[in-house]
């Protein structure tokens, strides 16, 4: 009899390319696998699938396209990652246009991901915030955003978080048969409500206290996990705390600052070589930092100011 594993799903997304999502994910997966957990990595970065490159694997024969186009079950698409206990479902950025995947297939994918028999499933969503990405992001038990300490990246993260919130709101309201309410919000002239989750909640509560209560319930456990990557200095590291406060005070959303990773040549090298950083540089301070981030994510811990 096969033990049914817990399958905690982590998804990493947000922002443009180059923030280090794939780097972080492959290393977080390596840490978990090395600590005895069964891990599945899924590369859904349709803009540039590179998890397999990070792991030094040649473009595998089986990819996520096989699921979409041929209906091959996910378990049959996994390939070895080079790390024991961690398997990879490789992405494919070449053969199909993402927009052409029909909605029902996407939903099917999400259901199958949830049914995987892993301790942890880590999903690389890549850049962008179209509906597929947001929907996939929302099935995660832990929604992780990778940020760089630069203005553009920070701007992208706020935008991404807002998009996720509105997508969730739409899901919740549509499920309750309140699609009209969604349209009402979108066309709300008083755009004050659209800028702030608190303001939006207030507006909805005015519409109906039942809705308000339901939303409180859905959003009370809603939170994001922040990882600050490519940090240059200790001032940079503080940006994580600032973003946390802005999210709380302005967007009304809870976040956990899981940690920060410094920029370093050795990291660039390991990406080029195609081996997880943890494996190539086991004694490096950046490895320590990565391990701590992984532990913080597992135990839902924050950095203290």
């Amino acid at each position, binding site marked *: 009899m096969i033990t049914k594993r817990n399958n905690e799903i982590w998804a990493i997304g947000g922002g443009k390319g180059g923030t280090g999502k794939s780097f972080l994910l492959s290393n977080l997966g390596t840490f978990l696998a090395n600590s005895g957990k069964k891990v599945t990595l899924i590369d859904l970065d349709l803009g540039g699938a590179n998890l397999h490159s990070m792991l030094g694997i040649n473009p595998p024969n089986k990819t996520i396209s096989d699921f979409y186009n041929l209906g091959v079950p996910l378990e049959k698409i996994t390939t070895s990652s080079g790390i024991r206990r961690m398997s990879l479902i490789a992405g494919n950025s070449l053969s199909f246009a993402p927009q052409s995947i029909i909605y029902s297939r996407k939903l099917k994918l999400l259901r199958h991901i949830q049914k995987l028999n892993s301790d942890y499933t880590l999903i690389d969503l890549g850049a962008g915030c179209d509906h597929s990405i947001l929907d996939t992001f929302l099935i995660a038990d832990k929604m992780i955003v990778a940020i760089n300490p630069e*203005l553009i990246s*920070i*701007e992208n993260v706020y935008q991404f978080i807002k998009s996720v919130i509105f997508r969730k709101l739409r899901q919740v309201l549509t499920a309750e048969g309140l699609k009209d309410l969604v349209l009402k919000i979108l066309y709300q002239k008083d755009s004050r409500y659209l800028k702030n989750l608190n303001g939006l909640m207030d507006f909805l509560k005015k519409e109906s206290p039942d809705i308000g209560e339901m939303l409180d319930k859905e959003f009370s456990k809603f939170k994001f996990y922040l990882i600050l990557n490519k940090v240059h200095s200790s001032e940079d590291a503080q940006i994580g705390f*600032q973003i946390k*406060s*802005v999210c709380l005070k*302005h967007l009304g959303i809870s976040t956990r600052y899981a940690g920060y990773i410094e920029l370093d040549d050795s990291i660039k090298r390991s990406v080029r070589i195609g081996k997880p950083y943890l494996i190539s540089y086991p004694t490096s301070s950046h490895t320590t930092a990565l391990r701590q981030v992984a532990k913080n994510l597992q135990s839902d811990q924050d950095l203290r100011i």
Partner: protein
Amino acid sequence: MHKKNKEIQKYLEILELGMDPTYQEIKTAYLHLKRLFSTDSIALFPIKKELPKKKRQELLKEIETAYTELSKQYLNNVHTEFPSDPDAQKSLEITDEERISIFYSGAALKKIREKADILLLNISLETKIRIEQLKNLEDENFALLPERIFVKGFLNNYADYLSLDIQKVSTDYLKKYDEWKNNPATRKRKTGE
């Protein structure tokens, strides 16, 4: 008592603190938020347009109030940090009369600082006063302290850091200092031998 606890909860939320923070945590949280919303922080920049000046000032005012109230609350309970039993809290609060009757000698300052879990190092880093001088201040090693005007400066910084009544700290402490200074016997020790 419960109403008061609700207010405290609100202030804790504003400063983004958990239950039972130390004084150091309160102060750090306050400084972080104050800096974030009063300067041009990079994290604030993308949403600057969404946060009009008026709203920002309201936010800063809230943060200020939360800090003031929480420090008062904290320093009230010199015997214990936020106890979860509201009745216990009542019996341990120092009344205004009691507070006025505290004489801020060096030893008293030291006791307050220690109860608040603050190291001399913390005060030194913030005020830029050397640790040895802060120690001399607490130990009332008047002979080793610099001129009176500097001592007053030290006291102001020290008292401000601990959110104490700057005037009273200064007045009390300098009373003792002046006693020493005007006493020819002890004074001789400073200038002579």
